[in-house]
């Protein structure tokens, strides 16, 4: 009974979301059937379109995983966006400085560099929270803007490609680019990096004493302290890992996709990451599934715009609506759910 109520309530959310989507499509004046067909064919229509879903999912998995790790210890990371950009800065700088290194050394090094840069960008708010109790919601948010501004400054000054008039860096040396799986697609080895990260995070959080401490701190810092678990250490550590993963997302976007640093490499992945983590219930496997779902939504809405003339901003609306409905679920479907 309890289980079926839960399932029904989520089904209700799905139906409501579908209804709202239909309403929006009708507002544009498009044919609903055609719109849905183009949405699905935008995702599954070709080998390429499926690969595009995976390409989009890579940064979402990594940033979403980061947000989830932070959330486990009670660190609400709104700053994955900025941490992603810091990772992107790291890979670009390192690639140009170490351009003689062979790929076999270069790739692990830039990933590590991205982890460190992203981690540092997140560990500062983490430290401020753990040591002084300053709310990380606001600090991480502000660090996003600072990071994005730094990228803007760098691509106009020291990292600028002199041969171009646009604010962007030169192409990275080949040794610093991630290999592409199939030449007809853009799908790159970042997917492997993301999936390996998922497994590692799963082991860390659910199987090791460190992960146990993080979860305990997230659920009850006071009891953790009384049991001799350092709240400070665990928040700092989880914020470091959280930002580090987002930093790796930045590395993957630059090394795997754009091959250079430029503004706007992330269309808000770092913010969507929070939704990914929420929908994935802060569990590594859940994060993968929700990241794939949101990536599919975005890719599908592109198809819908191409073929049915529905603006892509519909995907942003749907994301927002789904989250709002989930937040309201317990009130909306009170009759279905057991008393709590």
């Amino acid at each position: 009974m309890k289980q079926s109520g839960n399932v029904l309530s989520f089904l209700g959310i799905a139906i409501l979301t579908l209804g709202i989507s239909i309403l929006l499509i009708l507002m544009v004046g498009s044919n609903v059937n055609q719109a849905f067909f183009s949405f699905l064919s935008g995702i599954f229509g070709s080998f390429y379109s499926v690969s595009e879903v995976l390409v989009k999912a890579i940064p979402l998995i990594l940033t979403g995983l980061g947000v989830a790790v932070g959330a486990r210890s009670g660190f609400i990371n709104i700053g994955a966006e900025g941490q992603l950009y810091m990772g992107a800065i790291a890979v670009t700088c390192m690639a140009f400085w170490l351009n003689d290194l062979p790929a076999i050394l270069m790739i692990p090094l830039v990933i590590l560099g991205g982890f460190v840069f992203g981690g540092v960008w997140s560990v500062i708010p983490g430290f401020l929270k753990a040591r002084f109790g300053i709310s990380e919601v606001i600090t991480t948010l502000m660090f996003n803007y600072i990071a994005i501004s730094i990228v803007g400054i760098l691509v106009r000054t020291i990292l600028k490609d002199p041969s171009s008039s646009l604010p962007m860096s030169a192409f990275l040396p080949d040794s610093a680019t991630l290999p592409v799986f199939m030449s007809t697609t853009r799908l790159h080895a970042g997917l492997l990096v993301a999936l390996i990260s998922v497994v590692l995070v799963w082991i860390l959080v659910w199987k090791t004493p460190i992960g146990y401490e993080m979860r305990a701190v997230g659920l009850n810092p006071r009891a953790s302290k009384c049991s001799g678990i350092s709240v400070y250490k665990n928040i700092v550590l989880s914020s470091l890992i959280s930002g580090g993963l987002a930093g790796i997302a930045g590395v993957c976007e630059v090394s795997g996709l754009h091959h250079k640093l430029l503004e706007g490499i992330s269309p808000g992945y770092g913010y969507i990451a929070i939704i990914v983590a929420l929908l994935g219930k802060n569990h590594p496997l859940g994060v993968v599934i929700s990241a794939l779902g949101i990536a599919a939504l975005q890719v599908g809405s592109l198809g819908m715009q191409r073929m049915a003339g529905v603006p892509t901003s519909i995907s942003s609306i749907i994301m927002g609506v789904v989250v709002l409905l989930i937040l309201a679920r317990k009130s909306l479907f009170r009759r279905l759910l057991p008393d709590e």
Partner: protein
Amino acid sequence: MDSGFIALVTMYLIASVRMATPLILAGLGEAISEKAGILNIGVEAIMLSGAFFSFIVAFFTGNLFLGLLAGIMGGIFVSMIHGVLSIHCKANQTIAGLALNFMMMGLTSFLFLIVFGQTTTLPSCSVFSEVKIPLLSSIPIIGSALFNQNIFVYIALISIVLTAIFFYKTEWGINLHAVGEHPQAANSAGLNVFAIRYFACFVNGVLGGLGGASITLGQLGFFMENVTSGRGYIALVVVILGRRNPVGIFAAAMVIGFSQALQYNLQTLGFPIPTQVFSMFPYVVAVIVLFLSIGKSIDPSALGIPFERNKR
């Protein structure tokens, strides 16, 4: 003093006040909301909604005041969704705010495309013109900066005074404070915690909507996707810098407004400094201020925590 210098100062002051106006309005609204314990990081969504609906109505009716009203309604719409989620559904306020940002970003851009289609030239409407206030406007420097401006500037200035009176001189301010600090005590004293929090959300919507409208109907005269471009987030910064004190919010918004005015000016003058140096400024200052306020608890105790009446 050199008259050229005075003219320059005056010019910057005028520009700063204009840049600060949306931030003051939205900042005051957010401060009231936070004082009652509701942290709404969806200010951007409120402003975007205000900007969009004010423009649409002003464009089709040709009446700026109707547009202004629509902007307020748009702000209230978003803020009340957040209110219902935070107060009634006891949801996570941060995530609710974030989701609203996504939704409104998509919705305003979606509706705009539906109404106007893909256009090369942006549809535009007139903006509120300056109204000179006799006597006051002839005060040197400050006069033209504060008293020869459009209606939004005056609304912002009046709002500062009213909010200050509300916070520090009325029983209502004490009630608001009590609800954000110790809702159980407020409830037990016979205050309606839910109603007061909804009221705070409502005011946040009104002021945030006005802030959004001040961008389209006070400055630009047109709407485009993401027209607020992060001003809602800066408004959050303003609230922190101003420590939820109306005068502090005014000061913080002016400092940021000045840096923005400077940024535009240098941009047009073709200085070789990237504008990002300036756009980064408010955030860096905010972080520094947070650093300096270490050890002094300034947040209301119940900020972000839902109130449950029948809780055991």
